[in-house]
């Protein structure tokens, strides 16, 4: 392990990892997620940058981000705010435009995704030369914390229906903790039309269509915000609508 870390630091590092963090009202969590990212990237020796895409958060997220920039440097923390809350897809497009890395990592900024898995994503990608590596809660020792039976049932049920209908070749389609080759992410985002959970599913489906290779890494998902299952009827309906659309059009 030590020699591998040594190699990562001393070899000509042409690989750079851009972490895209779309934020909305994450004043509390942003410093914590940044601290964790800096910790794990620092320990692993990989070259990185963190791009914060704040959608005009009224709680002062951008001001906190500016402080973090002063602490960690403007080469490591890059701010690309937007005036108002726009979609996730456009946030990725906006972020990619300013990314100087050749790999892009997308994740949630609310601490449900833990940066400790990022070195594992990177190693998995190197191992298989994958176009994208997806964090999965459903395989290996992946899992969740903070979900009641109802939430787990909905999650597994929805995933099962998706697997039967789409046969996507990936175990966790609605997950949003992934590593992409930059050009792959660009290609996929411009082809995707859905929103919300279905957007992440569509990314995988389109990746399959384009014959992209997909690797998986088990992750733990710590649900602190939605502990009491804010997954209501509306979201389920729109998920099913989106799933059927993908079923009929891809």
């Amino acid at each position, binding site marked *: 392990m030590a020699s591998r870390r040594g190699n990562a630091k001393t070899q000509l590092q042409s690989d750079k990892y851009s972490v895209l963090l779309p934020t909305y009202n994450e004043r*509390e969590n942003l*410093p*914590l997620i940044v*601290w*964790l990212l800096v910790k794990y990237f620092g320990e692993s020796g990989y070259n990185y940058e963190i791009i914060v895409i704040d959608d005009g958060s009224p709680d002062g997220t951008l001001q*906190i981000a500016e*402080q*973090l920039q*002063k*602490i960690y440097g403007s080469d490591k923390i890059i701010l690309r705010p937007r005036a108002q809350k726009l979609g996730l897809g456009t946030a990725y497009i906006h972020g990619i435009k300013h990314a100087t890395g050749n790999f892009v990592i997308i994740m949630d900024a609310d*601490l449900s995704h*833990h940066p400790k898995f990022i070195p594992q994503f990177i190693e998995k990608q190197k191992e298989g030369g994958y176009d994208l590596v997806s964090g999965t809660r*459903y395989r290996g*020792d*992946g*899992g*969740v*914390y*903070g*979900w009641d*039976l109802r939430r*787990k*049932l909905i*999650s*597994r*049920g929805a*995933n*099962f229906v998706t697997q*039967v*209908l*789409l*046969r996507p070749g990936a175990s966790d389609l609605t997950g949003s903790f992934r590593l992409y080759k930059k050009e792959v992410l660009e290609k996929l985002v411009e082809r995707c039309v859905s929103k919300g959970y279905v957007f992440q599913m569509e990314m995988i489906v389109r990746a399959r269509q384009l014959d992209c290779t997909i690797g998986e890494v088990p992750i*733990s*998902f*710590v649900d602190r915000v939605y502990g009491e299952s804010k997954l209501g009827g509306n979201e389920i309906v729109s998920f099913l609508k989106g799933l059927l659309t*993908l*079923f*009929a*059009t*891809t």
Partner: protein
Amino acid sequence: MTKLLEWVFGVSLIGIAWGLVTFDLLDLQLPPRYKEVAWPMPIYLLVVFGCYSLATVGYRVATFNDCEDAAQELQAQIKQAKDDLKKKGLKM
């Protein structure tokens, strides 16, 4: 071909095969045993699939990992992070 078309195609193939055997459409003179077996097949397959689905989802829910350790580790690291950031001058 879209997934929908794949399904329509697959179901049609099975449907035609079933129809041919059950209703003797090609006048194949198959032994009556074939008809007896083929006739309830669609219902039978649906029921089998239904049971398989319930069993699979049930199993997966039951074995869904609960990441207690991850949650505790996160709590500890949050404390660490807050202390360290305060030292570095962050005003939260």
